């Protein structure tokens, strides 16, 4: 017998998440079953620890961590975390918003070791610094590369070759 599909906008996790996090949920929405919350950047460690430890939500996996540049919108940058629970079979998207030329977000390296390279990649591509990261070096670009290439204000034609002409 086929399972009844979940109605597209039904909130399954958000009531529990709101009860757990209280006022730290700045905003939330649910689009076709994808539930998203926005939390303050400075509280991300506490929020993630709570989501990780809560027995009902049980988010043991950090699936992805990425940056977004929304220039010219303010606040300009977003860091997006995708959480997953294999045991409970559900997912949650958590976003923090940061601004300024040198945005800072606390690291999740201690909670999920897998966040290490994700955060290095976001630092490399967007220049978002992760406070408390033990080894925040570039991940993909080389030493000597200037700037952060996925920022919207990085010139699309700018080339920084190690050898050869700048074409």
């Amino acid at each position, binding site marked *: 017998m086929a399972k009844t599909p979940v109605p597209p906008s039904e909130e399954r996790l958000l009531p529990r998440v709101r009860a757990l996090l209280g006022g730290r949920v700045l905003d939330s929405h649910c689009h076709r079953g994808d539930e998203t919350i926005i939390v303050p950047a400075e509280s991300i460690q506490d929020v993630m620890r709570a989501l990780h430890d809560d027995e009902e939500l049980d988010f043991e996996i950090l699936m992805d961590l990425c940056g977004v540049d929304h220039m010219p919108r303010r606040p300009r940058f977003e860091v997006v975390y995708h959480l997953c629970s294999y045991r409970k079979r559900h997912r949650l998207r958590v976003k923090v918003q940061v601004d300024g030329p040198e945005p800072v977000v606390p690291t999740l390296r201690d909670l999920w070791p897998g966040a290490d390279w994700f955060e290095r990649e976001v630092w490399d591509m967007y220049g978002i610094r992760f406070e408390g990261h033990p080894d925040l070096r570039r991940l*993909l*670009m*080389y030493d000597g590369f200037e700037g952060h*290439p996925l920022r919207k204000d*990085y010139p*699309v034609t*700018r*080339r*920084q*070759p*190690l*050898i*050869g*002409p*700048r*074409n």
Partner: protein
Amino acid sequence: MGILDTLESQVDAVVGWGRKYSLFVYPFVTACCGMEYMAASCAHYDTDRFGAAYPRFSPRQTDLLLVVGTISHKLAPVLKRVYEQMAEPKWVIAFGVCTCTGGFYDNYATVQGIDTIIPVDVYIPGCPPRPEMVIDGIMKLQDKIQREKAGLLRRRTMSVAEIPSPDTLSTIGGLTPHGQSKR
């Protein structure tokens, strides 16, 4: 035309014949074109028919550098080092449009044609090229090798240091920085 010239041309023909049917390949495979390289070099298309299927993973033992796949700026010094480690005589095939011109990776990360770093003999465009195009490229290289003076008494290629810089390049008869052989 003296007897020595005749002799030299005969020697050139023999040496060229020997070289063109014993290409030891260094596959510098970085990306999706590698799948097409495997297809081209294995039984279905069988580049061994042209003596060019035996991959040697040491540049010191190879004649043909087959650059297969996108080359990023981070990797470019490695590619140049591998080329420099190969012993003369040596040839280079740019396999796939990324190695020819950068392809659609016109961005901060990608070398816009490996001929900005090392000399290239044959360009095989395509994304990826069909095995027939690869075989055609190898045959074109064989023709080129056969036509070459064997150069038993002289070196045949220019060194990497002699590749013109982009500043001088723009003054040489309208050559573009990529897509053209620098030989």
